C-alpha cells in the first residue's frame, strides 16, 4: 500500500468553489448582454468579448511577469471584464475600453495582491477612470434604433422631469440611451434573482440599496423617484457591483448598512449634483468604508466574555 494522506480535518468539502461562483455571475450577466445586443446592436458583444479577454490577458501577463501561479481559471477576471464593458456605451472605442480593463486588473486588483486583496471594486474603478478620462465617449449614449421620443435622446436620468409612467415599459426593457449593460432593468433583475436562487448573493444589499435610493430621492425631493430607480446604472450597480464579495461587508447587518449608505449617496449625488456617476461614486465611497463597517458589525462570539 502506498503512503496514506494525513491532513487536518475536515476531510470532506462542499462542492462550492470560487470558479463556480464566478461562473454563476457570468451566467447571471448573460440576459443583460443579450438585451444590449438587441437594443444597441452586435457591437456590444464585441466590446464584452474584448473586455473580458483583455482582463484575463492582463491578469495572466502580470502573473507570468511576477512568476506567480496563474489564477485566471477562477474566472474573476472575466466577470470584471464583462462588468467594465457593461459600463461603457456601445460606441466606445475599443482601445479606450482596454485602458479601463488594464487599470482595473493591473492597478486595482494585481498591484494590491490579486483576487480578494483589492479594497475597491476593480470594475468600478475601471469605469470611473474611463468616465473621467474619456468623458465625451463615455457619455455619447448610442440611441436605440427606432426610438423617437424623449427617452431616445439621452440617458433618462438627464430628463427625469419629462418622464411619466407611460415611459415605464421602455425603462424596464431598456430601449433608451445609456451604457450598454445598464439599460435593460428586466434582464438585470432576472440575473439578480438567479444569483439569489443560486445563493451566490444575498438580496440584502440590492434591496436595501434600491429601497434607500427611493426613500432618500423622495426625501430630497427628486423628480420621479420611482421611475428613476430604473434609469441610469442603479440596477447594474446594486445587483452586480455593490454585491462584490471582496468589497462588501461580511455580515447581514454590515450589508444592510452598506446598502443604505450606497442608496443615500446615490440619491444625494443624483439630486444635488448633475454628475452621471452617482452609482459608481457611491459604491466606491462605501467600498472604502467596508473595513470600518466590518469592525462595528462583528458578530458577538457565542459565550464570549469580553476582556475588561
Amino acid at each position: 500500500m502506498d503512503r496514506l494522506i494525513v491532513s487536518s480535518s475536515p476531510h470532506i468539502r462542499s462542492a462550492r468553489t470560487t470558479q463556480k461562483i464566478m461562473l454563476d455571475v457570468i451566467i447571471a450577466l448573460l440576459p443583460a448582454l443579450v438585451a444590449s445586443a438587441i437594443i444597441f446592436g452586435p457591437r456590444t458583444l464585441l466590446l464584452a468579448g474584448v473586455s473580458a479577454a483583455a482582463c484575463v490577458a492582463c491578469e495572466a501577463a502580470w502573473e507570468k511577469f511576477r512568476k506567480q501561479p496563474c489564477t485566471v481559471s477562477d474566472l474573476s477576471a472575466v466577470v470584471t471584464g464583462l462588468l467594465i464593458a457593461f459600463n461603457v456605451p456601445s460606441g466606445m472605442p475599443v482601445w479606450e475600453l482596454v485602458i479601463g480593463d488594464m487599470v482595473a486588473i493591473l492597478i486595482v486588483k494585481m498591484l494590491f495582491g490579486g483576487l480578494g486583496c483589492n479594497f475597491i471594486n476593480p470594475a468600478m474603478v475601471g469605469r470611473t477612470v474611463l468616465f473621467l478620462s474619456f468623458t465625451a465617449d463615455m457619455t455619447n449614449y448610442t440611441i436605440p434604433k427606432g426610438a423617437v421620443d424623449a427617452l431616445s435622446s439621452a440617458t433618462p436620468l438627464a430628463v427625469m422631469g419629462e418622464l411619466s409612467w407611460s415611459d415605464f415599459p421602455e425603462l424596464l426593457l431598456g430601449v433608451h440611451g445609456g451604457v450598454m449593460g445598464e439599460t435593460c432593468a428586466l434582464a438585470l433583475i432576472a440575473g439578480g434573482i438567479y444569483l439569489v436562487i443560486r445563493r451566490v448573493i444575498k438580496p440584502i444589499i440590492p434591496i436595501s440599496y434600491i429601497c434607500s435610493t427611493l426613500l432618500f430621492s423622495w426625501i430630497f425631493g427628486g423628480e420621479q423617484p420611482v421611475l428613476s430607480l430604473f434609469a441610469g446604472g442603479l440596477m447594474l450597480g446594486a445587483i452586480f457591483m455593490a454585491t462584490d464579495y471582496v468589497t462588501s461587508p461580511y455580515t447581514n447587518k454590515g450589508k444592510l448598512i452598506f446598502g443604505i449608505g450606497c442608496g443615500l449617496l446615490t440619491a444625494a449625488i443624483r439630486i444635488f449634483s448633475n454628475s452621471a456617476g452617482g452609482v459608481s461614486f457611491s459604491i466606491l465611497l462605501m467600498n472604502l468604508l467596508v473595513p470600518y463597517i466590518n469592525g462595528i458589525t462583528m458578530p458577538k462570539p457565542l459565550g464570549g466574555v469580553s476582556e475588561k
Partner: protein
Amino acid sequence: MSAVRLHGVRVPHMKNTAGLKPVRMDIPTVVTIPMSMHIGAPAEPVVKPGDTVMVGQPIAKAVGLVSSPVYASVSGTVKKVDDMLMSNGRFMKAVTIESDGKQDVWDQLKVPEINSFENFISAVKDSGVVGLGGAGFPTAVKLDIKDLSRIEAIIVNGAECEPYVTSDTRTMLDDAELVWEGAALLQKYLKAKRIVIAIENNKPECIKTFQKMCSGGSGIEVAVMPSIYPQGGEKVLIYNVLKKIVPEGKLPIDVGAIVINCTTLAAIARYIKTGMPLVEKCITVDGSAVKEPKNVIVPIGTPVSDLFEFCGGFKAEPKKILYGGPMMGIALPSLEYPIMKNNNAILAFDKKEAEAPEPTACIRCGTCIESCPLRLMPTEFAEAYEARDAERLGKLKVNLCMECGCCSYACPAKRPLVQTNRLAKAFLAADIAEKKAQAEKTGGEGAK
C-alpha cells in the same frame, strides 16, 4: 439574543450503515490497548508481560482525579507493556495481549451494589466509561457534581451529526433499553429534574423508539433536532435544546446542563446491570474504499486493519484512513492503530475523496463567518495569525473555536481554516503563557 438560530452546515448524511445491525467479528489474535483513551492522566498498567488475563480484568488503574481504568478486552497472555506511537505523534504506554480465542470472563466480575450517589459515581468510574461520542472525557468526573441542585437538565446526546457514523444510531435501536435504564439511573442518583434525549431528525426510527418509551409519564422527553451539523456539539446542543449559552471558560453545569452521549449512557447501564466494564465498541466501518460497509462490534485494542479485512477488504486503494467521522476525524498514517474507547467509526477513502483540494485566494465572501455555529470569524483569525497578532486573536476569541470544521467545509476557496484556527489557538495560548511568566518574573523582582 437567544432567539437567534445558530449557524452550521448541511453536510451529506451518508448514513449508509444505519440499517445494518452490528455483527461480531472473530476475536483478533492480538490487541493493543493504549493507556490513554481518554482526556486526563493516562492509566497505570497493573499487569506485566507473561500475565494471564481474562475479559473484564483490570489491566491498568486510574491515577489522579481525571483518569479512567482500563480492562482486558480479550482473554489471553500479556505480551508487552511498552510505548506505542499514537496518532497525535506522542508516545503512550500500551498493553499488548495475545488472545487465546476463548474470551473467558474474569471470575471476579460482580454486579456493583448501588444505593447512593457516591457509589453510583464510583461505579461509573469503575466501568471505565469515558465520553464515547469522541471526546473521551472520563464520565465519572463529569457526573460528580458536588451540588446536585445545580442540575436543571441532562441532555442525552443522540444527535450523531457526523456523516457516515451510525454506531450511536445502532445503540439507540439495539440497546434502547440500556439507554433508558441509564436515563433512569441519572434521574434517581443525580436527581435530574429533566432528561432530554436529543436526536437529529434523520433518525426517525430512533425517535419513534424513544417517543414510545417516553409516553408513560417518565419525566424523560425526546427532542427532535434539525439535521444541521454540528448539532451534537456540546455547546450547540445546550443552546438548541435549552436556549442557554455556556460562557467562555465555564462548564455546561454552570448553566445547569449536563450532556452525555447515548452510547456512553448505555455502557454505564450495562456495567451497573451486568458488571461488565467497557471492553468492546460498536464501530462503523465505511468510506469509499471499503468493500462491504458494516457496523462491527470489536474488543477495544483491535487493529483497524482487522476491521477492514472483516469488511471484505478494500475495493479501491485507500489513500486516507480516519478515526471517526469526516468532519472531525483524525487521519491515521497507517493501518496499525488500535480501536480505542472513544472511537465510533473508522473510514477509508479512495484517492478521489482523500485528496485535499488546493486552496485558492480568500474572496472575502463571509461564508465561513456565516457557517460558524459559535459566531466566530475564521477568515479574520487567518489574517491575524498570519500577522502573529496575539492581541487581535484574543479579541476575536479564537480560543472558543471547537474545530467542528464548518468553516473549512463551506469555504469556496477551499482554505484550510480549521488548521489555521488550531495553529492560532496554540499561538495565542503560548503567548498568554509567556506573558504570564514574564509578569510573574517582573512581579517577583519587584518584590525583592
